[in-house]
């Protein structure tokens, strides 16, 4: 007997018992749907975060005092707070000594300021970056209008500013901002440029800032921030090519260790990270969630599998006479076995398909609600169906064996 025939028989049997088939399937559906929903949800967030994290170019990495993406424990936090600050001088050392890099920028950040032009004022949620001309390249955020900071501006300490898109929109709704004089935190600056718009799924944070020469920042705001802590420079470094990125990171670490007198054997007292390393640490976090969801789904599927076995045993008993008829017509053991096994597998896979679709739907609710990129992790869909097949195979085997071994006469006599 061909598989196709057994398949048709299986479908006909499932159709003949729609309600019972459906009830049995709820277990499979919820198991598969929960796995797929979590995986889809994570994929959605992952895709979005990867996009967001691509602030640094593929050749760029950053050196800073603090951990990328925040500390993971209190103990680590205390250790990090005790680190020495990173300085512009260290950035200069990297520029001088590391041969595999071409751009080295310095950034100092502070937030909670106001910008004013004539009688228009922003909220006091403006972020100020004291930076260098490498800023746009190393952050892949380019100047759309006017010009970038020049080395001259930094050296001389000119009071010039490049505005983020949102700030420019707010202060200059109708006029050209270039060459206009504005006040930032009560101090006068000349607008020399405007950044391109940089949308973010996480809010408007990436546009609501302005860039001034790092020297002006230091002169204006001093060594200590509002909390009284010494300011630490973020050093952005660009490798000469993407292939050289790892070498550049290694050499930079060596230079930084030397500059900061880190003894051999001691761990780095600074953090180096690239896009890859940030995405990797995000993936480390989600791996746990994924494993948890997988385990829960697995348990649900095993429970569902036992349900399938139960219902198949009931089905075999109910159809004892049918089995007897089939045997009297010449069905061999294998034909009966195939028929019932396939019935269990088809049943599981119907549940699997519904579960996968439901899971995709549920998982993408996040993306529909937030405008995140939507995701359809097909490998999990395929995996889910393969798994359903295995569940059907394992839990359908015993009832199918029972069916195939029925004695034809006993079966025909069954009422």
């Amino acid at each position, binding site marked *: 007997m061909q598989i196709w025939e057994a398949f048709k028989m299986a479908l006909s049997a499932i159709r003949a018992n729609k309600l019972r088939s459906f009830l049995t399937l709820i277990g499979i559906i919820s198991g598969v749907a929960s796995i797929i929903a979590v995986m889809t949800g994570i994929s959605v967030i992952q895709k979005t975060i990867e996009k967001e994290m691509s602030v640094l170019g593929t050749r760029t990495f950053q050196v800073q005092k603090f951990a990328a993406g925040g500390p993971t424990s209190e103990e680590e936090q205390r250790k990090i707070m005790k680190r020495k600050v990173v300085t512009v001088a260290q950035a200069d050392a990297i520029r001088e000594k590391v041969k595999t890099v071409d751009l080295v920028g310095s950034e100092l950040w502070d937030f909670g300021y106001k910008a004013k032009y004539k009688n228009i004022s922003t909220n006091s949620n403006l972020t100020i970056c004291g930076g260098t001309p490498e800023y746009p390249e190393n952050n892949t955020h380019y100047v759309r209008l006017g010009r970038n900071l020049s080395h001259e501006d930094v050296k001389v300490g000119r009071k010039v500013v490049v505005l983020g898109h949102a700030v420019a929109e707010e202060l200059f709704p109708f006029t050209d901002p270039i060459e206009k004089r504005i006040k930032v935190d009560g101090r006068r600056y000349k607008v020399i440029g405007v950044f391109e718009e940089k949308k973010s799924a996480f809010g408007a944070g990436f546009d609501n800032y302005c860039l001034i020469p790092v020297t002006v920042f230091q002169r204006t705001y001093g060594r200590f921030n509002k909390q009284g802590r010494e300011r630490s420079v973020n050093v952005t470094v660009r490798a000469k090519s993407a292939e050289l990125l790892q070498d550049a990171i290694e050499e930079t670490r060596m230079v930084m260790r030397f500059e900061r007198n880190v003894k051999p054997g001691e761990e780095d007292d600074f953090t180096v990270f690239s896009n890859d390393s940030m995405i990797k640490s995000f993936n480390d976090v989600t791996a746990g969630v994924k494993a948890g969801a997988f385990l829960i789904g697995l348990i649900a599927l095993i429970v569902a599998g036992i349900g399938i076995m139960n219902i198949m045993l009931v089905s075999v008993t109910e159809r004892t006479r049918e089995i007897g008829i089939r045997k009297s017509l*010449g*069905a061999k053991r294998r034909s009966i076995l195939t028929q019932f096994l396939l019935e269990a597998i088809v049943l599981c896979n119907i549940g699997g398909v519904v579960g996968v679709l439901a899971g995709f739907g549920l998982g993408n609710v996040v993306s529909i609600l937030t405008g995140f990129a939507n995701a359809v992790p097909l490998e999990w869909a395929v995996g889910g169906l393969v798994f359903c097949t295995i569940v059907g195979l394992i839990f359908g085997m015993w009832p199918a064996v029972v069916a195939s071994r029925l004695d034809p006469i006993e079966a025909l006599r069954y009422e």
Partner: protein
Amino acid sequence: MALEIQNVSKTYMMGTEAVHALQSVSLSIEENEYIAIMGPSGSGKSTMMNVLGCLDTPTSGEYYLEGEDVSKMNDDQLAEIRNQKIGFVFQTFNLIPRATVFHNVELPLVYSGTPPAERILMANDAIERVGLTDRATHKPTELSGGQRQRAAIARALVNKPTIILADEPTGNLDSVTGREIMAILDGLHKAGNTIILVTHEQEIAEHAHRIVKLRDGQVESDVRPNRVGRNADVVLN
């Protein structure tokens, strides 16, 4: 010789008590014979049919079907014999309720691995032979008893077996419908099939050319009555 059983016994164990359903029965049936097996209830008729139909194996004795020793065969070999050489007609029809007449009739062909195109032709041909073409897409529950038994006969003959085994085929039918069914069986006999018929009705048994009577699992009599009257058309056998 189409079928031959020698000293066949069948013993069932009911708890500790042995029930001798067949006791050392020997019987030879020629090709294209039309034979009725009669006897009171519990005399072993069905047991005999099951053995002859390869649904059951005897406890002891030998069974040759078209020269082959069937008593030593395993489940799957017996299944193949049933599929190829034997067609069953049961008192309770034994159709699969959720399948249409066509699909019921097609089933033996599915198990013999006949290609789909051929299957359709053969199944429709068998359905036509029993005059059920206009009911082919109906389910058994939508048919009368006579129509169900005709569907069962179509299924029995679809694989072109040589032997048709009918266990009380008219037992659940009124006498008019019973006669219709017997007419079909008579036709199959004329077409060359060996027909073995179990019945307890004399009128039905008279369609056959040989009547074997069982009692307590043994052959009580084995006669070839003189053909008269309405069965004159098959006397020529």
